[in-house]
């Protein structure tokens, strides 16, 4: 590979926050016309690196060169002028302006033209979308578009402003599989146009599905860089986590007469998933895995009544239950630990106590609606002790806890109800390795005590470690079931990517 192919070169970049090194002497090369994955767990330094190359933060030391020239001191405006663009998860679009105006806006502002002509904007936007083969209603206001189309608009905007390197921060998080396909098609076009596209992700499938090369960060250091085709899944997991993938399965055998606590029959929701039938028996931990946008989260949220299914039945303890709302699901004995802890799981500024009782207020009040102080205290103490939540003061805000302990609080909120079925979505994302095992142990213990546990996850070793069976979802359907006798990291990985 000739040197000229490298468009963005990062050398020896170091950044320290309050004595903690977020990035240590990081070297990264991004080449023209490649899809590069910047992979690493939460806190590995990915975000810091993006902030530095996009001029939001200044490095303590190190250099950044673009097309062979040292960029010097970067500011966000300078970075955009040079062609380094970042598509953040919030997309940073103007919701009240049309798609065309959004696409043309940055280019116009940068060219220091004071007046913006609507016709010019439309022409530029049309040229851009046609060239990229994207179909978007250019006259529509951005706020009226679904997230996936807003994202396409943001990408078009970057392209219209001569981006050379386009960073996308976890772009597939909010998309369904159809939308992911559309996004990946666009990424292919961008690659063909000679752009370097950098996917930032901690999700293994993304690395394997779309990337040409990968740079892995861990604890602020680049621990691996190379071609994706030279890697296999376990190796990537090892470099990302720094731990060997041990198949330390710790699963208790089920009694043959264990009865199903949760069953779904032909569950479906338009455009999301269809014909989903499975069961979880008392004492069983069942995994539900799939690629991003496969429908795994949608299935979980349908069982919990957040986005109810259109068709099919849900049974708890053999009895059909009507789940049209979260309230219905909770009453039926279903609990759900959602995938995005910070926005869906915890009340960050509220006390640990209040977080722990948030799911069982109805059980903690007297007939007049008064909270029974003693019952509240008992619930809180039980949760803190049984889940070993590390805190000295339950009136302190949840914000003060580590990620792992915050997740234990979310678990505690539901265990306070002793649900029949516990559904968890990505229960250990953003939780450090030590805490992770602790959370898995909680799941095993609860299952042994007779609860049915359904774990939605794309963390293969975690699934192998804790699940009796793993169901694989693809394009909204359960396509495979990996039973205990053939459970292995390889088997689940094959199922996922199959």
């Amino acid at each position, binding site marked *: 590979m000739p040197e000229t192919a490298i468009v963005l070169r990062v050398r020896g970049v170091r950044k320290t926050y*309050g004595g903690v090194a977020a990035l240590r002497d990081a070297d990264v090369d991004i080449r023209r016309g490649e899809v590069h994955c910047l992979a690493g767990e939460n806190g590995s330094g990915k975000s810091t690196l993006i902030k530095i190359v996009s001029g939001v933060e200044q490095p303590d030391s190190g250099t950044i060169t673009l097309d062979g020239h040292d960029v010097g001191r970067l500011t966000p405006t300078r970075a955009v002028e040079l062609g380094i663009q970042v598509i953040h998860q919030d997309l940073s679009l103007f919701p009240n302006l049309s798609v065309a105006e959004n696409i043309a806006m940055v280019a116009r502002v940068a060219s220091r033209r004071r007046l913006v002509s609507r016709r010019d904007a439309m022409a530029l936007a049309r040229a851009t979308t046609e060239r990229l083969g994207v179909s978007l209603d250019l006259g529509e206001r951005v706020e009226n578009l679904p997230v996936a189309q807003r994202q396409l608009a943001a990408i078009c905007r970057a392209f219209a402003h001569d981006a050379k390197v386009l960073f996308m921060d976890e772009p597939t998080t909010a998309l369904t599989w159809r939308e992911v396909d559309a996004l990946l098609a666009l990424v292919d076009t961008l690659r063909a146009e000679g752009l370097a596209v950098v996917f930032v992700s901690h999700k293994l499938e993304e690395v394997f599905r779309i990337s040409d090369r990968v740079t892995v960060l861990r604890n602020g250091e680049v621990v691996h860089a190379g071609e994706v085709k030279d890697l296999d899944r376990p190796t990537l997991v090892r470099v990302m986590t720094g731990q060997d993938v041990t198949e330390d399965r710790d699963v208790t055998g089920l009694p043959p007469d264990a009865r199903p606590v949760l069953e779904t029959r032909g569950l479906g929701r338009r455009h999301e998933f269809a014909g989903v039938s499975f069961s979880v028996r008392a004492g069983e931990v069942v995994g539900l895995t799939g690629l991003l946008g496969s429908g795994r989260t949608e299935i979980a949220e349908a069982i919990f009544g957040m986005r109810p299914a259109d068709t099919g039945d849900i049974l708890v303890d053999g009895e059909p239950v009507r789940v049209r709302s979260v*309230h219905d699901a909770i009453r039926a004995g279903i609990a759900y630990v959602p995938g995005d802890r910070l926005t869906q799981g915890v009340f960050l500024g509220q006390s640990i106590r209040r977080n722990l009782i948030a799911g069982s*207020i109805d059980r*903690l009040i007297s007939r007049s609606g008064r909270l029974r102080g003693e019952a509240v205290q008992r619930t809180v103490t039980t949760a803190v002790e049984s889940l070993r939540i590390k805190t000295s003061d339950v009136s302190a805000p949840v914000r003060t806890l580590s990620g792992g302990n915050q997740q234990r609080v979310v678990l505690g909120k539901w265990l306070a109800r002793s649900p029949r079925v516990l559904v968890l979505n990505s229960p250990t994302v953003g939780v450090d390795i030590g805490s992770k095992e602790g959370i898995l142990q909680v799941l095993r213990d609860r299952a042994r005590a007779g609860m049915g546990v359904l774990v939605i996850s794309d963390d293969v070793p975690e699934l192998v470690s804790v699940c009796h069976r793993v169901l694989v979802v693809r394009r909204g359907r359960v396509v495979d079931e990996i039973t205990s006798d053939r459970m292995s990291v390889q088997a689940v990985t094959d199922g996922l990517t199959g």
Partner: protein
Amino acid sequence: MTGVRTVAGVALRNAHVTRLVALTLLLVVVFSALAPRVFPTALNFQSIAYSVPEIGLLALAMALTMITGGIDLSVVATANLAALTTAGLYIAAGGETATSPLLLVAFCAAALLVGMACGAVNGLLVSRVRVSPILATLATMQIFNGIAILWTDGEAQYGFPDTFLWLGDATIAYVPVAFLIFIGAALLIWHIVSRTGLGTRIVLVGANPVAARYSGVDERGVLMRTYLISGLLAGIAGIVIAAKSTSASPDYGGSYVLLAIVIAVLGGTDPFGGRGSVAGVVLAAIALQVLASGFNIMRLSPFLYQIAQGLILLVVMVVELRRGRLLERLRGLLTGRPG
């Protein structure tokens, strides 16, 4: 270490209330020094106690909706409708001669029902139609005002009997009855917010509506009840206003909406939801009336009073911000994480 942190935490959490007490006492001391013959007198303190309830009740209503992340701009219009309801009923029942205590109870109940009906309209708009609270209550404020003006041709309504006016001018052990009503209402709201399941849900919905939904909190029901209670408080305010001013008027208290917001925020209510202190709101209402009384006694311009109000709000907010940053920094030091 942990003990120290606990104590520090409790002190910091209650610091706002402590600061408001200090502010009120400071104002009392300053005005007493400036006007030693007039200000620190039983009569003056009693007159302050007469002036607090109407705005205090409206501020409580405002604070409650703000805790859910909303707002109720229609509180004053609701209060006026409730006041006009009692006036209309009394006029129909014979005006000053309708002294039966039974009528008093019935007509006050009618005023509270009207207040709650207004609250129900707001609640429906916010929880079912999903109009943003600021717009929904801005619209209902105009509607309630319009109804009041149409109903009365814009004229103030007189004709209350003494049994009703007693609520506005009587005292029990030197304490005005209206003030006792205000304290009673504040205790009720305090009980709801900090001691009931509904109160916990109100705070949770305000703190993070998404997480509340994922916790099975019935957001619609919570919002509906919140605006009902807000309407109820406005109804009580309407009764107090009518009894104190011996009349009901469709355009009473034009500046009260903003003042109620100032008091709610000054009292420690987070305008973004999830946090609020009933004790804080009560203290803030008292502090501002002490200030008003002081300015009045010093014969200062009411416009100066407005400026002082704004300044106090700004100062308290700045202190609050500083405290937040200081806390972040402390936390960073304690956990060793970057701040």
